[in-house]
């Protein structure tokens, strides 16, 4: 080998080592970059090309997305608790709360961009990241059509039109739907990746583990039993059908009630609330606003709902201050800034 060739070889090796070291540093400082890239089947270079050069903001988004896909809701809640007035941050915050049975309880503690913090809009303005994340809530609710739609869209807009994450989700959805042939296709493809073989073997139709069978049976109990056709933006129809199929699906109920509240449709809220008895403060305030705005706020009507003395007293105080100050926002913000009453009066939709 000539001297020049040797120098070239050493230079190439040094470059490769430098790149490897750089990626090592990136992986240590930004662990979710690496994990997100792996879930999408991307090389380090492609991960950076797809997600951009590692930044803390992006790492924060990736952390919530990766952990929600894994189902580690404690971590998702931990990461999303920091209120950055981000639609995606709110989406994961609400989702982690819902998965822990406290969607209503935590709703007003966080920035809420109307219904878009519950269901991410999927349209030509949506980012590829948002499109991929949007299906998580539908999957967890048991709405497999919308979950599959999001998974396929994620696949369409992914850099490789491929990725273990999409294959896993599509396999799960098709198993729940009883579409074993489709599930097998995805499982077989996934089985070719090291690190997923165990996951695949546990789910292979005919040889599923008891845990997977239990999960399947739970998921199948959630899916709608009645078919109807609705528009993509019509989340309420989907949620109502989920509740028809499984009245015990509290996550669907809370999403429905919070949806009604966030779009300020109190007529629908009170109908959807029925006599479910959920007593998070946000629901109590919604009930009181409905009763007051329809002129039927009385001891008798309030007694039909689980409204506490404290919330009732706050409601009257809010109304007094509101009227005294001719609807000004500032005098109410300190005490009531994180209440539904405040949101209902002052939140304005930002269409940007």
């Amino acid at each position, binding site marked *: 080998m000539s001297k020049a060739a040797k120098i070239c070889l050493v230079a190439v090796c040094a470059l490769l080592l430098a790149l490897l070291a750089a990626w090592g540093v990136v992986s240590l400082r930004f662990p979710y970059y690496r994990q997100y890239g792996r879930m999408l089947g991307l090389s380090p270079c492609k991960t950076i090309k797809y997600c951009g050069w590692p930044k803390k903001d992006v790492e924060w988004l990736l952390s919530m997305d990766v952990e929600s896909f894994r189902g580690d809701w404690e971590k998702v809640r931990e990461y999303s608790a920091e209120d950055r007035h981000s639609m995606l941050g709110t989406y994961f915050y609400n989702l982690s709360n819902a998965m822990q049975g406290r969607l209503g309880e935590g709703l007003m503690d966080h920035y809420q961009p109307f219904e878009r913090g519950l269901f991410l809009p999927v349209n030509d303005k949506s980012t590829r990241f948002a499109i991929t994340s949007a299906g998580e809530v539908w999957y967890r609710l048991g*709405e*497999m*059509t*919308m979950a*599959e*739609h999001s998974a*396929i*869209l994620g*696949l*369409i*807009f992914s850099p490789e*039109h*491929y990725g273990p994450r999409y294959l896993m989700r599509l396999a799960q*959805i*098709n198993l*729940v*739907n*009883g*579409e074993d*042939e*489709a599930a*097998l*296709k995805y499982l*077989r*493809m996934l089985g070719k990746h090291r690190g997923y073989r165990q996951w695949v073997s546990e789910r292979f139709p005919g040889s599923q583990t008891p845990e997977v069978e239990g999960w399947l049976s739970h998921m199948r109990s959630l*899916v*709608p039993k*009645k*078919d*109807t*056709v*609705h*528009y*993509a933006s019509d989340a309420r*129809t*989907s949620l109502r*059908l989920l509740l028809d199929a499984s009245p015990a699906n509290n996550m669907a109920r809370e999403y429905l009630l919070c949806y009604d509240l966030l779009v300020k449709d109190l007529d629908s809220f009170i109908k959807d609330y029925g006599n479910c008895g959920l007593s998070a403060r946000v629901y109590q305030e919604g009930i009181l606003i409905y009763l007051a705005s329809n002129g039927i706020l009385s001891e008798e009507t309030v007694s039909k709902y689980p409204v506490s003395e404290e919330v009732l007293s706050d409601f009257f105080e809010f109304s007094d201050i509101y009227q005294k100050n001719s609807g000004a926002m500032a005098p109410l913000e300190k005490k009531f800034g994180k209440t539904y009453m405040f949101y209902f009066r002052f939140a304005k939709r930002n269409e940007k």
Partner: protein
Amino acid sequence: MKNNTISLFLLFFICLIQACGTGSGASDLVRERFMVAEEGAPISPDYTSVTIPPNIAPLNFRYSDPDAWKAETVFEYSGKQLKIRGLKVKWSERKWKRMLHESVGGEISVKGTVAYRNAPAKSYGWKIYVSTDPVDPYLSYRLIEPGYEVWNEVCIVERCTEDFKETVLSSYANTSNACMNCHVHCQGRGDLSIFYLRGPNGGAILNRDGKLRKLSLKDSTMISGTVYGEIHPEGRFGVFSSNIIIPGFHTFGNKRLEVFDSASDLCIADFDSNRMIVPGHLARKDVLETFPAFSADGDRIFYCSADTVSLPGDILNLKYSLNSVSFNAETGECGIDVEVLREGVSVCHPKASPDGRFLVYTIAGYGTFPIWHTECDLEMMELGTGRIISMEPANSDRSDSYHSWSSNSRWLVFASKRGDGQYGKPFFCHIGEDGSVSKPFVLPQKDPSFYEKTLKSFNIPDLSSSSVGFGYKTIGRIWKDVPAEPFGAN
């Protein structure tokens, strides 16, 4: 000790025989002794008992039994024998063509022997029938992820059905990721076809006698640009539908997407004088008219229509009948009298055979977008008698739709979601002189596992007797540099 040694030796000998019997180099006697005859060969794709054209590309397949260890496949034809060893049966194109050449009008007997490590070998037998009717050598399709009306990085491809060569006709890479769709030929002619490029620089790309034009097939009276359609055999006119398309979602998971029209009309495009003709009686507000197609002689237009209903709520009541009206190829005018040919089901995509004898269409329970409808099947009508011919041998328990005729009217290609239910694959079936339908086979691929690995659907497969002769670079230039020719009202 001696007895033990003999036992071990015998055991070794039996194992050796068994191993030999399942693999290469074993005598036929030993193989037969340890073999279990089976039905239903575990091969993928399923090429058992299919009728194939004499010019089709090699039917490569693989043994799909996960426990299979070794395999040997013997093809017997015209007194000759050809043996291929291995779980993947991949042909040399030269040998395959020779075998087909010598089997035209006859059959090929196939015997597959599959060996297992811990079980007796199994043998399977099946036949492949080689028709005398060739299939058109070119097939165009769009490659796209399963249909959600959303695209990214789409291509229209022309595949040679006689081998595995593919030519990209139009690519996202040359059109700034524009959507493109529905490349259809007129009666399988490579020199007469049309497809759409959508978006700001878009238009309908008309390929007529080797000349490419970009057309804006819309005028002020139409509800939208043209969507579905076909070119008249003489090339001057095209018949199209203009549709306002709305996507909706089923709540049942495996029913997925339902696309419907909030309005749709028919129109005629005159490519010579750049004018659109919108016949009032085929563009009614209370009726949805769509999927127009010319008869083989061009004297009639077949189309589907339905009374408007409240959508999406009444989608189950949206049923399209199959109709026809006369067409004047001198003036571009449509007749007034509408003949209803088929009703009671929802009919889509009528396509007349180039010999004028048959009309094939899809039938579904309801709606106008049957690609996710498991009940969606192909049906054939003999146009001379109105007799409906079942296409049961070609249909499956999944959607079978978007068909196209070979120019000799003896082959039909269609997109079928059979198997996984999610990805459309091009299947071919033979149509006999009497309307008999053969078991279909999927477009062969070089890699027998291709369909198990792809995440793309084959969309709108369309046959042609010759190549269209253009490629993605030309289309890219037209997309970028050529303004769409405007069309005006009649």
